[in-house]
């Protein structure tokens, strides 16, 4: 239903590139998306699950969590896009006619992500994830200059190869499940698979899990398959970077989680995939410290920080205790909000200063105080400083590490987080203070503060978590840990 909205909106965008037309159509599409998406999310959380069209589309708590992330961030980012892209056209960085292609691909991108979280079938999910790669490639290369083309090429090649491994993994699972469930779509349905989970052929499942983890892991950006990520995030238009980082990575992680909750039930045991996830997580977290400390390009800084947070999520989910998975689910939502906010505000900063190099940005506070305030909020949010919600979720994951008798790992994770905090603080303080450049055009309206909406939500969620959200998260935990 909302997938239809997104596809129709995408095609509609191609009709005209006039400013008013695009604004009107996007607003209508966003309202419809919010209404239908919000309704589905509500139904899912109140009933535990919700289906459409005799179960062709199916949502449980985990899909609903992802669905809410997609809808919220899509609305925020597209609203920002309308102003941002208009300005790019105004500054003659892009011809106006290209705008319609921009919105076309963005909406196709959103549609494919909605498909990923709405299908109960691991095969169709694969088709959707590959679809997200295709939809975003041309967005990454949207500026068509040398660097953008390079980033897009790297992205397409690396992710396509990765994803084809995931297809092989899915086939292996199908081969294992087909004798029990028959040669049809049902054999890849994650509602049916848990029922036969302990009868599946172990060799096939083990190999399948490995292939899938590497495949989708490339898309999530786990080290060592992360090479495409900073390039793609830094070269794409900023709103697209926000979507990539805050939603797409989560969608790929969602695919891994579906496999995870399934493998926990097979004879491989709950720890098999959890341990691999945790290794990926620690590797990603540890390696990003260096990249973040030494970074000069502000958008790459944020991209590496995404890899780091995906690592934290992998640790939390891989740990597999109730507390850690609860924290990770919350963190998934909060990281999405914070990162989208940061990419948006940094994007507008890059547009104003005309550079992505941090050493060339100085004295932001003096020239654009409101942008400065949001940057400070974002800095505190992304590094998990109290009282932001991210502190709470990261703490829950770390506490899980200590409780499961991994004090050394807990210490290492804390050390990495502290170093990353130091790196972020260093970079951001230098940008915020100092002597501003003369070429800056000072002055901005108070309305800039509207952009801070997501980070304020993160702040509030750090202070108190409403009962309904807590219940929803507990449902998510149940889905991940206990199958369907």
């Amino acid at each position, binding site marked *: 239903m909302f997938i239809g909205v997104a596809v129709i909106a995408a095609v509609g965008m191609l009709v005209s590139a006039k400013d008013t037309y695009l604004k009107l159509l996007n607003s209508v599409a966003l309202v419809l998306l919010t209404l239908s998406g919000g309704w589905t999310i509500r139904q899912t959380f109140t009933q535990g699950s919700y289906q459409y069209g005799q179960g062709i589309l199916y949502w449980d708590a985990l899909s609903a969590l992802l669905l809410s992330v997609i809808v919220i961030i899509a609305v925020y980012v597209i609203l920002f896009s309308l102003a941002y892209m208009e300005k790019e056209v105004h500054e003659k960085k892009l011809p106006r006619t290209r705008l319609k292609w921009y919105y076309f691909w963005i909406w196709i991108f959103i549609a494919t992500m909605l498909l990923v979280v709405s299908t109960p079938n691991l095969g169709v999910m694969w*088709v959707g994830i590959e*679809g997200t790669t295709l939809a975003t490639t041309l967005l990454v290369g949207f500026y068509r200059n040398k660097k953008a*083309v390079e980033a897009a*090429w790297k992205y397409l090649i690396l992710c396509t190869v990765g994803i084809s491994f995931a297809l092989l993994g899915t086939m292996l699972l*199908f081969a294992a499940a087909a004798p029990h469930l028959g*040669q049809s779509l049902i054999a890849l349905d994650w509602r049916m698979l848990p029922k036969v989970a302990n009868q599946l052929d172990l060799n096939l499942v083990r*190999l399948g899990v490995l292939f899938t983890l590497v495949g989708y892991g490339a898309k999530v950006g786990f080290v060592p398959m992360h090479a495409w990520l900073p390039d793609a995030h830094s070269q794409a238009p900023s709103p697209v970077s926000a979507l990539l980082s805050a939603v797409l990575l989560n969608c790929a992680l969602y695919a891994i989680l579906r496999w995870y909750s399934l493998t926990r039930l097979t004879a491989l045991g709950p720890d098999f995939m959890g341990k691999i996830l945790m290794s990926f997580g620690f590797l990603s977290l540890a390696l990003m410290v260096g990249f973040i400390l030494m970074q*000069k390009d502000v958008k790459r800084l944020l991209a590496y920080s995404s890899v780091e947070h995906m690592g934290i999520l992998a640790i939390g989910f891989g740990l597999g205790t109730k507390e850690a998975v609860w924290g990770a689910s919350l963190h998934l939502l909060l990281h999405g909000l914070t990162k989208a906010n940061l990419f948006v505000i940094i994007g507008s900063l890059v547009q104003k200063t005309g550079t992505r190099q941090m050493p060339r940005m100085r004295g932001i506070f003096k020239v654009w105080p409101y942008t400065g305030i949001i940057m400070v909020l974002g800095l505190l949010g992304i590094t998990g400083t109290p009282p932001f919600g991210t502190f709470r979720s990261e703490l829950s994951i770390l506490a899980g590490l200590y409780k499961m008798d991994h004090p050394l790992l807990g210490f290492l994770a804390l050390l990495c987080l502290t170093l990353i905090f130091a790196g972020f603080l260093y970079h951001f303080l230098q940008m915020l203070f100092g002597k501003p450049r003369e070429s800056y055009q000072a002055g901005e309206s108070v309305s800039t503060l509207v952009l801070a909406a997501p980070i304020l939500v993160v702040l509030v969620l750090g202070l108190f978590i409403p009962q309904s959200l807590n219940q929803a998260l507990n449902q998510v935990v149940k889905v991940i840990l206990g199958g369907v």
Partner: protein
Amino acid sequence: MSGISENWLNLVLLVLLASGLSIVYSSRVEKALNWWTVQTVAVSLLILAQGIYQNELEVIFVGILLLIGKAGVIPILLRRVLKESKTEWVGEIYLKRASSLVVAGGLTIIAYDVTKPLMALPQSGFRNGLAVAIALIFFGLLLMMIRKVAIVQVLGILLIDNGIFLAGFFLTQGMPLLVEMGSMFDILVGIVIIVILSKQMLENYDSLNVDHMRSLKG
């Protein structure tokens, strides 16, 4: 597989493996592309034959789609890019063609070795088939690592895709139709996007050599 006789199956597998090796050995992009087309036709004929013997409409349908979509459309699109860019050489940088053939031979043996534990499969023909499929995936990866022309890397992806398709066929006698069609659609759209991207690459760099693209680091 009731239907196709062991002999015929072995013949098809020979064609598949030989064309895979020929792609690795080719020094001209156009030739490699031709070999890939031969291979894809062989894959789709195999699937068609299977479908006709077993009277399964779904399998026949997939075979026809494969023949038209992959063996038909993709070479035309890629050939157009080749002509425009005047690319002929495959860009052997790290390994020359003879030594890459040796490596590919080694990979084939490894492929036979790694598929051993999965060999609960009923017929020996299947066992060969799966090993050849894995070998093709290895060839694709090899091609992507040792060649520097964008289109050849794409051929690597397509080779991997053929391998995965075959592996799926031998493991499961065909995935559900919806998934098959979805993956084929994805590959087709992917190739269209690759064509668009290579045009932009030509505009920016005047060649399809990916070695020029090294500016993004750190």
